[in-house]
């Protein structure tokens, strides 16, 4: 038979451990339930990517400079840089309206 010596320290550690594990169980239960609920409500839900250095977007793809993307303007038929599109449309459409 093994004899365990009980000291105030060992009991204190036991109580602290009990308190901590209760807190952990509570947090894990809440988070897993919340995740299960989200999965049930939105089966196609994908978590967003997060890269601290900011080189990738929320889908985990390389970020593209807006200036490197060109959008075809249906009004005048020209390819316009994405970061200039709003300004272009304003001029392009108002010019057309005046005609």
């Amino acid at each position: 038979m093994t004899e365990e010596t009980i000291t105030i320290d060992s009991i204190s550690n036991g109580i602290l451990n009990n308190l901590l594990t209760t807190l952990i169980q509570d947090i894990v239960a809440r988070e897993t339930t919340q995740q299960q609920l989200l999965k049930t409500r939105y089966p196609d839900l994908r978590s967003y990517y997060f890269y601290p250095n900011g080189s990738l977007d929320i889908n985990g793809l390389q970020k593209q400079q807006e200036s490197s993307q060109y959008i075809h303007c249906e009004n005048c038929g020209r390819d316009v840089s994405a970061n200039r599109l709003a300004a272009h449309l304003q001029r392009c459409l108002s010019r057309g309206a005046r005609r």
Partner: protein
Amino acid sequence: MTMDTAQLKSQIQQYLVESGNYELISNELKARLLQEGWVDKVKDLTKSEMNINESTNFTQILSTVEPKALEMVSDSTRETVLKQIREFLEGIVDTQ
């Protein structure tokens, strides 16, 4: 005195609960852990474990999160709360 270890522990625990000290210590611990960001860290850890394991099974996630979360408790919080528990326990020993 031939008191069983488990019996003694449960008696002490019961005394702490009945005297209201257990709740006091628990509240103090919760407040400290929240303040030092431990609660948020454990939430993040749980989320990342669920993503890694692609599972929301409570028992499975708890088994991986629990040991890491216990290690994440700061020494200062651990010491302060332990000191508080010890003081209460010493009070019980003195009066009995």
